[in-house]
């Protein structure tokens, strides 16, 4: 067990304030100088049911949830004691304890609410405690909370107990409480915090060794989620219009944006469905605003139609797709990377879109900005593809990531002066000109409704240069080729201006690991472990999904004997995409797949790699599967 890190898990029922409590505690750890990574596990219900939040804190960089955890605060599910008899089922009350024990590390610490949980009800509890050298502290957190305030404040008592057991200073926690609350509520919480702290300090023998690590940041850190990264990236690109329909986990971006847009002179619209949402983004963009929409799997399916319309009318929009476990409604609150092919190929005709898959909150910010820039410069829809894990999971990143100038440029818009001299036909502007001059191949000049001399018809039908419907074969080929040429020029520009596909680990390593999106951090930690063990491994997290980063991935794969493709789905969609895009390397690529609704842990990637090396490629367990190389 490594004790240079704390992985604190707070467990209870949904609606018990687990999330807000953990947010504050995570911030307190960050303020004390540590790097923090959070992971939310919650059921698809509003109140009750087993939920937990894990906070991993270390003075070293933390890029994943880590392996298992070493401190459990089990609060008890207050909604399991629903007075309506029929709503009560099973022994849910002990879940915050029993559900979490399997993943508690040896030597770990358990604090549980003796007012709500009874260890007698858990099979072999005492034996397991002894076997694993766990250190158990039973506190009447609920009683303490009730005594000084309200029952729900038992979270605060739990945090106070945690601080005492880990030898933490209460200062940061108290400051955060003062920011978040006021009046009697604040007073009661502060009192409960201090009482819990004192009683644990004075009344219990501390048998465990675990202490909060100490750290010191070189630069100011912020604790943000991937959804914050995406939202802030959009705002800094001048996005001032968003339309959406609530769907987990996309709702994160939708609500963050909506929180800020009115005060920033922007517009947010919650509309009747996702077809409308994406269509509104198109309408706003057509009229001259920077616009976005988005959804998750099922909602994105409805956007298939307007997505094609945006491609055909060459209206720039940015769509966010936050993946959750599918198919159909799947598991709404669980991450998966199963929508890759859906996002790449949905909508009729040849796909003509850009897809970025950022791997952490900082990349979410940078690549959303890139997605807007590309969309508006090239008049093409861009999609930012991420997942439930990255959507709600918070991570400490340097504040400086966001210290960038806004870019409100609409891109490729002509001026009214230009329009006076520009090519027209039948009184209409040649908006879809075949051979427009400019640095960006395939991009024709765009006018905005309201501009004098710029009128044209934007049509989802195949159209001629001024937009009129046309089934002329020559026009068809010219327009198709012009639209498709954009992807090549975008690829060229990306290769020249960005480094989305950095290699992690030793350049000359024998083995490679490929991943996309949110598995980035977990793979990097696995690479560190494998290299420490004497293996020779490097990794590449691919963000440029479409147009695909062919040159970078080819170079990476040419240099390794074999590569493990790590992804959270059952059918190896990303591996298939790599093979399809590169047309080779099939014999080098084998897969590590996980699709049980939980993100990878570093040890799973490590053992997946080792299992393959030992020649047991067909070894599978219930939640991780290895698939051997398939050939081209």
């Amino acid at each position, binding site marked *: 067990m490594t004790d240079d890190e704390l992985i604190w898990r707070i467990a209870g029922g949904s609606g018990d304030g687990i999330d807000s409590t953990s947010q504050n505690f995570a911030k307190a750890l960050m303020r004390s100088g540590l790097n923090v990574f959070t992971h939310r596990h919650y059921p698809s219900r509003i109140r009750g049911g087993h939920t937990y939040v894990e906070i991993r804190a270390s003075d070293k960089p933390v890029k994943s949830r880590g392996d298992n955890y070493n401190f459990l605060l089990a609060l008890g599910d207050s909604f399991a004691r629903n007075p309506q008899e029929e709503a009560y089922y099973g022994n849910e009350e002990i879940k915050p304890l029993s559900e979490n024990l399997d993943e508690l590390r040896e030597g770990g610490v358990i604090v549980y609410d003796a007012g709500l949980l009874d260890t007698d009800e858990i099979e072999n509890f005492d034996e397991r405690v002894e076997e694993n050298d766990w250190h158990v502290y039973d506190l009447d957190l609920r009683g303490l909370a009730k005594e000084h305030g309200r029952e729900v404040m038992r979270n605060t008592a739990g945090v106070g107990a945690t601080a005492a057991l880990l030898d933490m200073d209460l200062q940061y926690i108290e400051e955060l409480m003062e920011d978040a609350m006021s009046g009697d509520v604040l007073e009661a919480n502060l009192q409960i915090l201090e009482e819990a702290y004192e009683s644990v300090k004075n009344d219990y023998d501390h048998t465990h060794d675990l202490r909060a690590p100490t750290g010191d940041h070189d630069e100011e850190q912020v604790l943000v989620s991937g959804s914050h990264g995406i939202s802030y990236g959009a705002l800094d690109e001048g996005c001032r*219009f968003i339309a959406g329909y609530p769907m987990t986990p996309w709702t994160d971006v939708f609500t963050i944006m909506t929180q800020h847009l*009115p005060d920033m002179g922007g517009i947010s619209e919650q509309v009747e469905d996702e077809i409308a949402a994406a269509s509104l983004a198109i309408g706003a963009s057509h009229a001259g605003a920077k616009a976005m929409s988005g959804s998750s799997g099922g909602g994105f399916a409805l956007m298939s139609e307007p997505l094609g319309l945006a491609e055909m009318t060459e209206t720039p929009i940015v769509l966010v797709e936050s993946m959750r476990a599918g198919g159909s409604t799947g598991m709404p609150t669980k991450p998966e990377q199963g929508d890759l092919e859906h996002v790449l190929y949905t909508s009729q005709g040849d796909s003509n879109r850009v897809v970025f898959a950022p791997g952490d909150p900082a990349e979410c910010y940078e690549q959303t900005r890139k997605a807007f820039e590309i969309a508006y410069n090239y008049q093409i829809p861009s999609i930012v593809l991420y997942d439930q894990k990255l959507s709600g999971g918070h991570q400490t990143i340097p504040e400086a990531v966001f210290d960038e100038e806004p870019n409100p440029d609409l891109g490729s818009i002509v001026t009214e002066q230009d329009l006076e001299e520009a090519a027209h036909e039948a009184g209409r502007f040649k908006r879809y000109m075949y051979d427009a001059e400019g640095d960006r191949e395939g991009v024709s000049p765009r006018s905005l*409704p309201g501009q004098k001399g710029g009128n044209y018809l934007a049509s989802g039908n195949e159209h001629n240069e001024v937009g009129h419907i046309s089934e002329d074969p020559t026009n068809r080929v010219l327009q198709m080729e012009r639209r498709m040429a954009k992807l090549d020029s975008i690829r060229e520009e990306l290769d020249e201006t960005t480094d989305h596909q950095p290699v992690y680990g030793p350049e000359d390593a024998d083995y490679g690991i490929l991943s996309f999106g949110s598995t980035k951090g977990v793979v990097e930690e696995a690479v560190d472990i494998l290299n420490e063990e004497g293996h020779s491994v490097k990794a590449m997290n691919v963000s440029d999904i479409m147009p695909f980063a062919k040159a970078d991935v080819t170079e990476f794969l040419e240099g390794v004997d074999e590569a493990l493709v790590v992804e959270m789905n059952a059918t190896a969609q990303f591996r298939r995409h790599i093979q399809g895009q590169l047309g080779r390397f099939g014999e080098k690529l084998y897969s590590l797949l996980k699709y049980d609704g939980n993100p990878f842990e570093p040890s799973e990637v490590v053992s997946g790699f080792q299992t393959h090396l030992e020649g047991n490629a067909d070894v599978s367990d219930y939640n991780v599967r290895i698939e051997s190389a398939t050939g081209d």
Partner: protein
Amino acid sequence: MSAFNAIGEERDIDRDEFTPAIEPQATWCPGCGDFGVLKALKQAMPEVGRTPEETLLVTGIGCSGKLSSYFKSYGFHSIHGRALPVARAAKLANPGLEVIAAGGDGDGYGIGGNHFMHTARENHDMTYIVFDNEIFGLTKGQTSPTSPKGHKSKTQPHGSAKSPIRPLSLGLTSGATYVARTAAVNPNQAKEILAEAMEHDGFAHVDFLTQCPTWNKDAKQYVPYIDVQDSDDYDFDIHDRREAAEMMYEAEDALYEGTVLTGRFYVDDERPSYQQEKQQSGDMPEEPLAERYFDEDYEWERSYDLLERHK
């Protein structure tokens, strides 16, 4: 570039300005009611006083969707049933535009029915023209949401068991603040109604009866029509929801019995448009959003300034 011209002053406009210099060969059938809509729209434009450049016509798919090809303005030929969400966002982004949406009865009351309901509910300041010929035309004559009960077609060979949609009542109950019905066979009334609809500050719904001589041989049913405003037989308060609803009900029942009642059925001048409501609640900027991108002095806020809550 020069300042982006988001809002124009009303001015004298000639209807011919809305005709493309070389008019594309209209692909509507001879005798099609759609010609009547095009003509009425062009005639109504001078009364509104917006130039083609300040006008955005968003259409759906089908014969009606081709309106944007034959009407010279900024046009957006979208997809089946989706004209309204495209149009209303364009209006929000640039309220200076004269925004008109148009679609057919299948497009507007069938596949786009949900958007119709919600756009009316929000009372966006725009005009929605529904070409109502009780048939799917471009897909060759299938039963539509306004086809009468018992209507036989290739997709309902034994006659439709469905009652038709009640477009006027639907517009009213959804929240449209101007509801009218006119017909291609009465160009003068059609022109007046379209001009009124565009001048109206809110969601104006015009159910436009268009005969389909090819697929709906009963098109003659639209002649003769009765104008409810001109006739002494129909006396109701156009500003009273209940009276308007009753009148609509009568008109909708009568249509399938051969009596075509047209005219204005409901007008609410009091209710603010969605855009005004949003501006009043601080949910939308006073200045057109689209104009901001051309204002060199505008200071764009940075996300960096929002980070306090994350520290």
